[in-house]
């Protein structure tokens, strides 16, 4: 039952909003209105083109670092039962990964390129 609720609630919510938008929409805009708003600027191209995302090293670092979460959630559940052993082990694991973060910080990864 919990699983059914978990799947049904977002599904119904999404359908509700889609239906609401469809009912309320009054869409008969003319061409000048459909032109993307650009704050008075003149558009020379469409927006979907190659784009230099300035924080890409941070994104790559995150993919590697975020894996640690997969290990941390089960660890958190047994932490109190296992006691000091769990503390030492996760301390070691996080120290290893924190080294990576410190290195990346010193290399200037967290500034926009």
């Amino acid at each position: 039952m919990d699983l059914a609720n978990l799947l049904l609630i977002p599904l119904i919510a999404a359908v509700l909003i889609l239906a609401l938008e469809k009912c309320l929409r009054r869409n008969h805009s003319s061409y000048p209105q459909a032109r993307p708003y650009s704050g008075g600027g003149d558009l020379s191209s469409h927006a979907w083109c190659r784009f230099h995302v300035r924080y890409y090293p941070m994104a790559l670092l995150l993919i590697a670092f975020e894996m640690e979460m997969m290990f941390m959630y089960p660890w958190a559940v047994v932490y109190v039962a296992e006691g000091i052993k769990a503390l030492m082990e996760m301390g070691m694991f996080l120290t290893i990964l924190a080294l990576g973060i410190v290195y990346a910080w010193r290399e200037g990864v967290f500034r926009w390129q």
Partner: protein
Amino acid sequence: MVGIWTDITFYLCAAIAVFSGWRVFRTDSMVRASFLLLISFLAVGVIMLLLAAVYLGTALFFMMAVEMMVMALFMVMFMMNPAGLNPMNMVHQPWVAALLGFAVFTGLSLVAVYGEFPANPAPADLDPVRSLGRELLGDSMLVFESAGIALLATMIGTVVLSSHRGRYGPANEGSEPPGLDPGGPPAKSAAQKQQQREEQKEQEEDKQDHDQ
């Protein structure tokens, strides 16, 4: 009653997973492709939830959401035409690949149909999260810690390879791009081109002044 609904959900999710996995390679819009792959992962995550792998299912949601978000960013960075406004077809050896893919599918399906696997389901009172946690702190401690080392190596590797700015200045200082055709003169960067253009303009202006 519950069993029927589980089956319906399973077949629905399986269809979504395979179909969106297939559409990944058929859509023109690269951003759509990466989010189609995300949908495939989400559907597999729901199947995992149905199999009572509660932790793996939910964790798959957030891991894959991050990975596909980054994937979409890199699509935009590297594709000439990330939205696929003009249809394009960037494939090589499509028939060989399709044949091999189909062969692997058939082989694995035959194994699935004719192979004999022990029917040994997980006990109903198993707490998947807790047993996993005990495993991490017990027998598999070495696996867990060496995963940490591997991730550290990955982090350092990505920083070294991808960061534009090294500690001692720009990473590509002193290097020049390769030629546009093999063995040709190096391709100019945008800044160099701009500089050249400005120099040319100045020369022309000088010339005009001179003429007057």
